[in-house]
């Protein structure tokens, strides 16, 4: 079987020469296309570090990460940045939108880096804003949007490059329950309709309940990997 994401014996060690701290310790992970997976575990269990390694934001101390069969741990920084641009969408806990750009411009920005034509960009921005239910907020800057709306713009931005999968690091941590519900509905719909692969790190039970696969980490190791109906 071919996996969209594979990792073998993946480890990230801090202070290897003094007091080694294993943030991720020998993780073997296989994610198929179209999965809706939650990484759960207590604080410090290695969820964010694992997401960073899978997303190519950090290099592992040992092991490998393959995306569609390509080992991204062997890539230099510039290649990795380009790989991320074309293949991976990110949603961050703190939204991380560019404050001086409008919602539409934040989404368009990614496509500008991909050198898409103006027409292509405008069309895609329109589609994405409609998908996340923010068509009427396209000209608003992040400060003029609620937390939930900002996170929906972040999801739209993550989708802008038509990535292979989206990594979301505690995407609902700053949201109220209504906004969390809205966001999860949007992501579940994208997963169902477009077969978009999502991997979350989360503490949020509502997210865990919605996930179809829940991987539990403790001290950097996978202690359980369960599929949910």
């Amino acid at each position, binding site marked *: 079987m071919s996996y969209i994401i594979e990792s073998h014996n993946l480890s990230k060690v801090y202070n290897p020469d003094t007091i080694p701290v294993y943030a991720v310790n020998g993780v073997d992970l296989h994610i198929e296309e179209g999965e809706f997976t939650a990484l759960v575990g207590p604080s410090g269990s290695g969820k964010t570090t694992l997401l960073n390694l899978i997303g190519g934001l950090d290099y592992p101390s040992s092991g490998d990460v393959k995306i569609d069969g390509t080992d991204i741990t062997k890539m230099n920084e*510039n290649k990795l*940045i380009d790989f991320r641009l074309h293949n991976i969408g990110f949603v961050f806990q703190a939204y*991380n939108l560019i404050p001086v750009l409008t919602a539409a411009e934040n989404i368009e920005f990614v496509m500008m880096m991909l050198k898409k034509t103006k027409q292509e960009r405008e069309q895609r921005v329109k589609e994405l804003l409609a998908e996340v239910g923010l068509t009427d907020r396209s000209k608003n800057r992040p400060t003029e949007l609620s937390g939930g709306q900002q996170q929906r713009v972040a999801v739209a931005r993550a989708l802008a490059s038509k990535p292979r999968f989206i990594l979301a690091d505690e995407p609902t941590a700053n949201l109220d329950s209504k906004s969390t519900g809205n966001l999860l509905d949007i992501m579940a719909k994208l997963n169902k309709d477009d077969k978009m692969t999502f991997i979350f790190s989360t503490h949020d039970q509502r997210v865990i309940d919605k996930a179809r696969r829940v991987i539990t980490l403790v001290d950097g190791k996978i202690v359980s990997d369960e599929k949910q109906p």
Partner: protein
Amino acid sequence: MRSMVVIGSVAVGLFAGMFMMAFFMGLIKQEISSAVETQLSHIQIHNPAFPDDKEIKDTIANATILMGKLRKDSTVKGLSGRAVTTGMISSSSTAAGVEIHGIIPDDEKNVSSISQQMKQGVYFSGKKNEIVVGEKLAQKLGVKLHSKIVLTFQATTGDLTAGSFRIAGIFRSRNSAFDEMTVFTNFNDLGQLLGTGAGVHEIAIILRDDRNVNSVAGELKKQYPTLLVQTWTELSPEMALVTGIFDQLMYIIIGIILLALMFGIINTMLMAVLERQREFGMLMAIGMNKLKVFFMVVLESIMLTCVGIPAGILLTIGVVNYLAKYGIDMSAFSTALMQYGFSNMVYPELQTSMFLPVTLMTALTAILSAIYPAIKALQFKPAVAIHKI
């Protein structure tokens, strides 16, 4: 706010550089014009033997004819034939060495500004044996307006001769050393005492346009090879040297100002980059390559500079034009300034040729200042930077 700090730094840096240049330019021009108007004039003609020993017998041959010709020259604004000697001036209490200029007041008014710098009395009333002295000399001699003084000097016969003069006026020029060392009497009065009659030691010429000094002097040198024709820079090479030194000094001072500006911009841009660490982390995470991140920081600095430079130029034009009209009162330093021939009031002068080099230097400084913060931005690790607060 941060952007305003960078724009402000560039504007103030440019203003400081330009203002220093304008200030020094004004100071130098005033010093030159002061020296030209009170002592040197644009061109002086002497008997070649006169300047070294100031022998009173070394007058200019056929001076009256020469002056007549020069008066007809369209480039000449005014000229004055002078009898010049050195001697002692004595009051009832003390004596001092001075250079005595015998002048025709109406002619001298055309080449010297002394007549406009009278603090007391008049610039010759037409009476016999009048003398005009500097304020500093009057103070030194303990004399007042209408006081009697005695001039003692050597006549053509080789004998010492003396004449009694009454102070008709007291002047104060921008140069206190000149005021202390120079006195003016009527040409005929001095000529009689010297025994030179109508003999002229010095012809001082003021031109209509000071840019013609070298060409007119060159022409005169050709026409009168037996006479010594000198421009003000030849008469006072130290002043030409000072002008050159000031030119270099200006660029050194501007360099220091720009160096300070550079550290200001580096500091502000570095703060900006560090404050936006999360933003840079996010940009790199979603796919902005390092070259683009680098140029983003540099471009931001360039754009802020592009706003700061016109602001600085406008500020400079406004301030310098205002001060060129009303002057900068430096009277707190008047004693020191006047010793070197500088005026109490300095009128800064902008030259259009200043704008380009200073603007380019400021722009270059701003761009160079952005490089270190830009390199710093490249060193952020997206995984770490994203989580910075």
